[in-house]
């Protein structure tokens, strides 16, 4: 397999700055004897929208889960917003409160209402007064277009609505970076669009985003950069235009022909 290190500077544009949001250097991770992530180097600039794709088991999810320390890495360094991710619990908590994350299965708290889901972390982590937290939560719930469901429980909502609540819940912490771990993979086709629309809106507002997703249309439309991973390595990264029309590595060509072929 040819590992090509093409050095891509982020696409110029009004939202991308020179300020580094996430710096990953020489990162390695093992599950027992299994080497899941191999020598990952990645720099994410403030305001960038990055789509990570690749075959299943290639370490995409593991990579973004390392960024907010849901998974531990064994070698190399990860710096988020100038905070070095170490085993220090204080740094981990700081990074987690700055980095929002949306999961494939939403992970809403079923025993709390939509509104309580959204105000929980601001009240307990940010120590914001309850009234203010409710105002913020309602603001973001309006943004994802479900303010009228605020007093229902997650179990009463459709999958697409739940995922939008999950996005609003993360936004209530006013994160500087958002991570999306296959946010549409567990949804019915009809509901994928409403979630993607929310994510596109977020991207247009200049949020720094890293999305693991198989929605190639989304990648073409909003990404500055597409990263292709295979066998725990970053195989290729490029602007969407170049990535889809002119893939360099054989592995990427094979992957794209598989998913775009039909």
């Amino acid at each position, binding site marked *: 397999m040819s590992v090509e290190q093409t050095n891509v500077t982020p696409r110029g544009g009004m939202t991308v700055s020179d300020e580094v949001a996430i710096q990953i250097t020489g990162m390695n991770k093992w599950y027992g004897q299994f080497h899941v992530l191999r020598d990952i180097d990645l720099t994410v600039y403030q305001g960038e929208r990055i789509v990570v794709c690749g075959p299943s088991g290639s370490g995409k999810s593991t990579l973004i889960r390392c960024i907010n320390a849901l998974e531990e890495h064994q070698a190399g360094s990860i710096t988020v917003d100038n905070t070095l991710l170490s085993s220090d*619990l204080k740094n981990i908590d700081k990074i987690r*409160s700055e980095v929002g994350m949306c999961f494939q299965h939403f992970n809403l*708290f079923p025993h709390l209402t939509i509104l309580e889901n959204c105000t929980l972390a601001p009240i*307990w982590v940010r120590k914001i007064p309850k009234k203010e937290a409710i105002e913020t939560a309602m603001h973001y719930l309006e943004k994802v277009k479900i303010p009228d469901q605020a007093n229902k429980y997650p*179990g*009463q909502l459709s999958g697409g609505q739940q995922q939008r609540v999950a996005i609003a819940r*993360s936004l209530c*912490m006013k994160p500087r970076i958002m991570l999306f771990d296959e946010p549409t993979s567990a949804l019915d086709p009809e509901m994928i669009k409403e979630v993607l629309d929310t994510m596109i809106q977020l991207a247009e507002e200049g949020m720094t985003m890293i999305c693991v997703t198989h929605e190639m249309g989304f990648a073409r439309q909003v990404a500055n950069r597409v990263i292709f991973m295979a066998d725990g390595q970053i195989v290729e990264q490029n602007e969407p235009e170049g990535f889809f029309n002119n893939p360099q590595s054989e592995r990427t060509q094979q992957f794209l022909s598989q998913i775009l072929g039909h």
Partner: protein
Amino acid sequence: MSDQNIFYVRTEEAPRLPAPPSQQGITGWLWNNIFASMADYSTPSKAISSILMIGMTLFTAYSLVWMTWTMLDFAIFSATFSDPAGGKRETCLANGGACWPFIQAKWYQFMYGFYPKEEIWRVQLSMVMLAIGTLWMVLPMMPARGKVAAIMLFVYPIVVFVLLNGGPVEHGTDDIGRIVAGVWFPLIAAGVCFAAWWLTRDGKMGDVAMALSPAMLMATVVLGAFAVLPLITLGIDLTLGTEIVETNKWGGLTITLVVAIFGIVISLPVGVLLALGRQSNAPIIKYSSVLFIEVVRGIPLISVLFFASAMLPYFLEPGVDFNKLLRAMIGVAMFASAYMAEVIRGGLQAMPKGQYEGGMSLGLSFWQQMRLIILPQALTTVIPGIVNTFIGMFKDTTLVLIISIFDLLGILSATLKDPEWSTPTTAYTGYLVISIIYFIFCFGMSRYSVYMEKKLDRSHR
């Protein structure tokens, strides 16, 4: 296939009809639940089954009528209700049924054991407070239920101890001085621990110090209790001027409630801690939790109670006494905690990993995740198991009678030895009454758990 016409368009609404009579009303219910199964004679096998059903239905009906009649006959029709002449056993012997005057005569002991009559208001006051507090917590329309629950958990036990036992000192000024003198050391120690916790809690003093800070907080609470409890008891004692009633005079339902409620109140939080400890990554915490749970579950409660009452004095210095009731209460609470821990561990394991990750990704600390996300859901899941443990423990408290603490059942056994009331039916009457009392408490807990389950189950609404 190809030349079949599959084209179809519905042109008018199909009518909505009422359900057939067999689905509604009392006749429908009777038909579905009783007669439908014995009305089919279309084939030989169905006929045989119908005839068998008729036989079983008749047998069940007969048994029900017979049992109800026997019970009513014993408890009411052939029973002796009053004993105006004071004939005691002779009055009851005249009829064959239940001997209710026996219950009337011994009711006081069933409730209070050998507690002195002139001090009985203390027990009654405790029970009234318990009833009011419990109802207040349980009824959803009452205001400030959380505060009442906190009072019932932390203040009520102290009040009850002081009320039932009486003050720890005689009312001389010397004794007051002694109490105050005994308080200053734990008070200062608690202050030091509190300061240590305050300094280390946010990690400014380093990671090791931060890891120790919860232990500091716990030490503060324990030492604080040692400092504050004597002062509170002293205060109550001085205002009420109560006399000491030794715990060996307590008995009956009072003892049952004291032991059971102590067990319930201790076992839930300790069970949660043990269950979390068993899942911990720290080997010391993990294996000490496992050791406690497995050892306690591995030996019978009776042997622990025996050990506590008969063997412990051999191991202690002569003259050192450790209240027998307290030993029994600790034994029961330990047992309940170990069983509770395993029930709660089941609830923790039922939690999807995503719930932990959802909490983590929002920056919640471990204890915040536990308190706000994991435990509310895990405990709701295992309400049936928790209440099962409570009910089991409530009835296991009767085992204290083997170390001659006279709980409800023990008191009954003792009163049955009274020759003045010895008739063939006295024991049956007594056991019937005791069973009803136990049933009321256990059935109440069971129904409340069903209500709580329905109220808290939000996952599928």
